């Protein structure tokens, strides 16, 4: 955890020489926005991969239950991807606002 925050600090401090305050702020915003979205996408990516994989397995084992599994799968995807989408909103807020 400490090494991550050190890395973030190092990245956001690595401004080119002679950058004005506004430029420095822009660079920090862009860097941290990318980092925020990247970190937010890891968990949901694993989650959706696992979820859809298990659903495909369930549908292959029991094709007659495919409709029900599919509806539940979309529900699960909707809940899982919410975190990634909030990460995306944070990205927009950091980068553009």
């Amino acid at each position, binding site marked *: 955890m400490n090494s991550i925050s050190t890395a973030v600090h190092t990245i956001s401090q690595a401004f080119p020489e002679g950058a004005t305050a506004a430029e420095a702020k822009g660079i920090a915003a862009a860097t941290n926005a990318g980092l925020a979205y990247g970190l937010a996408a890891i968990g949901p990516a694993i989650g959706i991969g696992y979820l859809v994989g298990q659903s495909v397995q369930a549908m292959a084992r029991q094709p007659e239950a495919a409709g029900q599994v599919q*509806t539940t799968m979309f529900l699960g995807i*909707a809940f899982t991807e919410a975190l990634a*989408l*909030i990460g*995306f*909103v944070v990205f*927009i807020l950091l980068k553009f606002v």
Partner: protein
Amino acid sequence: MLGLQALSDSLAVLAAEGEGGGVHFPPIDHIVKWPAAFGDGQFWAFNKIGLISLIAMVVPAIFFFLAGNKAKLIPGKLQNVAESAIDFVEQQIVLPAIGPDGMRYLPMLTAMMFFIWVGNMFEVIPTAHMPANARMAGPAMLALLALVMFVGVGLKHNGLHYLKEALFPPGVPVALYIIVTPIEILSTFLIRPFSLAVRLFANMLAGHILLVTFSVLTITLTNTLSPLIVAAALSFPMLVAFTAFEFMVAFLQAFIFALLTAVYIGSALHPSH
């Protein structure tokens, strides 16, 4: 390897041109903010988003009115389409999420789904190219509607017992209610509508930005005179593929919004589940 070298060379040239060349990505204001046609700054200001929302409201209404106005036992073409649309909502949303007693919410869920879907489809309709739900106001209002709906249904059908079940879930040790009740308040009355709204909004905004990115890239690459022009052969198919993908996303988000509203209504109707 030689190709990569040429590519990086021309990238360097493109970057060195600075203000004269390079990719000009429009600022976010230019791709989601639209000037008002009239009433600028007033609460009744009317812009492209308002127009698209109006179309999204009127088109399904006219469609279902024409289809259902002269309903026959042997359905015509229009009635057939409308019936299969309603049958889809019944079989995929209402029955799995609420159950047979949820059929009285079918009109609301159908209207909700088609309003969102038509609004979303303007993302890929040429000359419009703006999903109505890429602005937070529309999804936020729809999510508030869903919140009012499921709380109202819970209070109407289960009375104060609904609030008791929602705030103090049974089967939890009494001491734990200090932790559980605030979490339940947050997750039921705050995070549910918030995540409903953000899911729709962020999906449509992300799709819109994606399409803008690849459009800008393709235009810039085809206008450049450097060897980078061959990269347009990669970015243009990506634009086409993402447009097809957004067709799917537009429908899927409308479906998921209606499905989640139905799930919330179902959990308010049958709290013991």
